[in-house]
């Protein structure tokens, strides 16, 4: 019997980008711990989760979209729209949260569904369609109101202020739990369901996926729906965090989400990447902000410059990586 063992590397190359991001996170944490007093505590990491739970949820949705090779620019606006709808419905007609939240999630998913359908059915670039979605959602925010609407619903505020105590004086907010549940469910879906594998296949080669008989159309529409749902959920979490609805919330969050996904090692051309990477990407972004606030003398705009630099390095790595595997 012929045995064939051809060009197989000993380290699974597919985990390499995630590993790099993980090392980056650990290194940043260590440097922070050495430089600043009171940095090297578990609560610092938990705070990153608490402050970025909504971004994590949004980035999960974005990961689905980018894995198919698409992009969703509308997420930031949909987040803002969700805070706005929640706040106005609770403040004005005084709807209860258990009615408002499902409604918001439904609207977000609906927007995603429509965008996905247009992208698929009319073969228009995702970039443009979701750009229109971005304008639409922001515009809807402003038609609801131009000012910030505070949220005073007692159930809502109570939930928002809940602290879940862990061991050793550490705590998290319920939003973190929700975000982690979303990550868990999403990771399961991507890894253990046919839909999840179809997402990877579509991103790897849409043409091949079609020829292999996979439901490419349904997959594409679904990922945008998921992204819409995640954005809406992110909006709900943001309104817990901010306790207000405002049309200027989450401006530019689509860029943060894309950056987190890319830094997490997901290829922007689709087909390769892990949710764990996205989680690490969000953590890296959050830790940059934490370090800058600890540094004190460094101003907030360094965040953007650092994110830009990280993006550059990771995109360059991806480029080198894909150029090598193609040969």
């Amino acid at each position: 019997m012929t045995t064939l063992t051809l060009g197989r590397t000993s380290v699974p190359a597919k985990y390499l980008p995630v590993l790099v991001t993980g090392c980056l996170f650990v290194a940043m944490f260590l440097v922070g711990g050495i430089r600043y007093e009171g940095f090297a505590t578990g609560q610092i990491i938990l705070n990153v989760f608490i402050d970025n739970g909504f971004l994590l949820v949004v980035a999960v949705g974005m990961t689905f979209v980018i894995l198919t090779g698409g992009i969703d620019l509308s997420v930031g606006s949909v987040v803002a729209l969700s805070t706005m709808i929640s706040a106005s419905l609770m403040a004005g007609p005084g709807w209860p949260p258990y009615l408002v939240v499902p409604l918001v999630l439904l609207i977000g998913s609906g927007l995603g569904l429509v965008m996905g359908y247009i992208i698929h059915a009319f073969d228009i670039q995702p970039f443009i369609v979701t750009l229109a979605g971005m304008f639409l959602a922001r515009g809807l925010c402003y038609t609801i109101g131009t000012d910030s609407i505070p949220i005073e619903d007692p159930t809502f505020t109570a939930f928002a202020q809940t602290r879940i105590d862990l061991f050793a004086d550490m705590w998290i907010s319920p939003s973190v739990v929700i975000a982690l549940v979303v990550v868990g469910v999403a990771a399961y879906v991507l890894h253990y369901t046919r839909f999840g594998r179809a997402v990877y296949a579509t991103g790897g080669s849409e043409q091949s996926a079609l020829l292999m008989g996979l439901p490419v159309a349904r997959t594409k529409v679904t990922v945008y729906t998921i992204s819409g749902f995640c954005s809406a959920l992110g909006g709900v979490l943001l309104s817990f965090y901010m306790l207000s609805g405002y049309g200027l919330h989450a401006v530019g969050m689509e860029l943060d989400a894309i950056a987190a996904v890319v830094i997490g090692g997901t290829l922007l051309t689709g087909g390769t990447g892990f949710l764990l990477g996205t989680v690490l990407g969000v953590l890296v972004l959050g830790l940059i902000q934490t370090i800058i606030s600890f540094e004190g003398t460094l101003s907030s705009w360094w965040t953007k410059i650092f994110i830009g630099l990280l993006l550059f390095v990771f995109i360059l790595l991806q480029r080198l990586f894909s150029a090598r595997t193609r040969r």
Partner: protein
Amino acid sequence: MAVPAPVLTMSGIGKQFPGVKALDGVDLRLLPGEVHALMGENGAGKSTLIKVLTGVYPADAGTIELGGATVAFGSPLEAQQAGISTVYQEVNLCTNLSVAENIFIGREPRRFGRIDWKRMRARANELLSRLELSLDVSAPLSTYSLAIQQMVAIARAIDVDARVLILDEPTSSLDADEVEQLFRVMRRLKEEGIAILFVSHFLDQIYEISDRMTILRNGRLVGEYLTKELPQVELVAKMIGQELAALERLHGEAKVFARPLIEARELGRAGAIEPFSLTIHEGEVVGLAGLLGSGRTEIARLLFGADHAGTGEIAVSGSQTSLRTPRAAMTHKIAFCSENRKADGLVPDLTVRENIILALQATRGWTRPVPREQQDELVGKYIKALRISPPNPEHLVRNLSGGNQQKVLLARWLILEPRLLILDEPTRGIDVGAKTEIQRLVAELSDGGMAVLFISAELEEVLRLSHKVEVLRDRRLVAELPNDDSLTTDVLMETIASGGRTS
């Protein structure tokens, strides 16, 4: 030997495209446990027939019977479910996914709705060992060579209890060892009683693996033959056909040329063409003859710098040079009309004038535009000389017919006044009138001192124009024949078929 009942019978298949009759009354039958070769030159209708069979296109006429029942598939998926699987030349798998997934995606084994990775890997291993392969099935497919990817595609194809396996040019990018491995797998499947339809341009491979063959020409059936009963020369003759062209017989002649223009020594590129040596003289028309996929286009691309040569050297007018880019070749006044006009020839959105002027403009750079009067003069001259119709320089090239598009491409290079003009199938897919015009033009140009490398699938045409003919087979330059009176299409076919071994 009794012939078993065919698994699949296609009879009287016809398929019409706007302006083209792609298939006309074609029959094909596949017997279980046999490798059946589908043969034919470019445009013979092989791919159309396969696409009709697998449900990509509906047939306009004729019937398909699978296992005795009449079928008509609406999509490749339906065909697959009925037991007809196809593996294409381009591996249609997702290289970012693991080997096991590529075999099973879309029908992964599940437990409680959750993909059972363990069972999937086990079944993948099982299936691959049926093909005598042992791979790490959890590694991404991209870590394996194209040959292995091809086998994985076959594994995917046979997992669904295939009765018919179609292999569409699976060997065109494989090396000899890999082909051998593929053939082992094919023989194994044959033993299991699967009917295999095999398309390849390599005659050696056909004679090594196939039991029976069906030959198509110009969308029509030439016939079905047992491979061992059909000598190679006859096969080539049947594929190319002996069309008694009504065109004037403009036989080329063997001449001795004094001044070498291009001298290629052991020029080659792995996977494309084996090292070859070739000298083209000023004023000489060199014909390249060989079947599709024999390396004709590859030679042209190397001489134009469109691809990098892996080995060998090249001299232009006696001095060493390297043609690393088309730009470099252009400075040596080499021009190349590519075979695929749409993909790498014309810019469909630009006008006739712009497409004609493009290469000249490229040599001048964007800061020195060709003056409009000069453009109009040049373009007008060539529209007239080549009889491009409609004779409107502001017409978009996309709206022109194939023959006129070809003339536009020719005009682009002619205004550069090249010393070597490479023409890759310049007369393919264009009508007879345009064909003779282009042939006459080539003769005129070479009389004027221009060297021409002329590639054509039609041997008649090659003979009519060339001073000498280079014969290619299976990516090798096998013979160089002066075009004297003893050279006929029969001799050429003989040479192609034998690979130059007997002559």
